[in-house]
């Protein structure tokens, strides 16, 4: 099979959120390899390393110290080698203005951090299923918007 494993990166400054995300990921049928980052700067430093294997999808928390999710998103969309990355915003904010702003700035997915583990697992599974199809089928990534 051409696609074996989805490489995933998550940047979130909250340790508990990172742990929950990792646990949810482990319980999903889709095979994944997860890289965790404590803030936006760590993530961007990693993504811009020469010869790094880019993840199929990047999850960004919006509120992070040093470099926040929106700054990362803008850097990714303006970076020649990174601009095609699929970006999911993973945030507690449910303000319509925030959500629209992230989409307009180039996010593909907006996930409201769910408040139960079951809901988190479901949300991640849905995102990854659809991503799998976007990576293996002729679907238009430019129009890929998903809100959960």
């Amino acid at each position, binding site marked *: 099979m051409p696609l074996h494993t989805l490489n995933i990166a998550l940047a979130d400054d909250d340790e508990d959120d990172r742990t929950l995300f990792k646990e949810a990921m482990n319980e999903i049928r889709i095979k994944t390899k997860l890289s965790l980052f404590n803030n936006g700067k760590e993530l961007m430093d990693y993504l811009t390393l020469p010869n790094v294997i880019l993840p199929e999808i990047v999850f960004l928390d919006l509120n992070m110290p040093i470099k926040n999710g929106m700054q990362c998103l803008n850097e990714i969309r303006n970076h020649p080698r990174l601009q095609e990355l699929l970006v999911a915003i993973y945030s507690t904010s449910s303000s319509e203005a925030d959500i629209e702003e992230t989409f307009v700035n180039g996010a593909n997915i907006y996930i409201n951090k769910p408040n139960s583990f079951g809901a988190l697992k479901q949300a991640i599974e849905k995102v990854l*299923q659809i991503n799998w199809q976007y990576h293996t089928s002729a679907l238009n990534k430019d129009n890929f918007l998903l809100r959960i």
Partner: protein
Amino acid sequence: MQLMRIYLKFDFNLICKAVLQEQLDALGMKYTIHGFGEIEFDRRPTDEEEQEMASLLGNYGIEIMDDQQMALVQRIKDSVTEWIMDEENPKLYNFSTYLSEKLDYSYTYLSSVFSEATYSSIENFVILKKIDFAKSLILENDLTLTEIAFKLNYSSVSHLSAQFKKTTGLTPSAFQKIILKRKERALNRK
């Protein structure tokens, strides 16, 4: 004489990528390496090139897979696309009949191969593909939503809107608004 040991740490992804690049460059074809063990060429390799590639990569224990199941999954996807694009077919056939007659396998077999390989069902893929098509039609802006619903064989415009919302989390108009704003912003930046 004094012995010395050094200790190494490997980045296997990087090594594999470097080996692939080196060998594929030797082949002299244009290629793109996708992160997950998939190489895309700008044309179909000849039999000789395929053999040479197999032997070059074989030296490093890299094997080219000839996976019939993956090929079948691809044929299912192609048939789904064809079926959606063809405005006559959907009215004459039911999709599962169409697919099993076209590919000459039972629908149950096709479904299980598809879910095994892609983690989701053929039905889900059909919806994803229809909504993908609906998105491009919405952005072309030549057709009303009612006309798009008819073209994609939805029973009503509300059925299309509901499926759009369920699949993307957005209404068709919210989707359109976001993409238009994105384009405006890109233009302003230039």
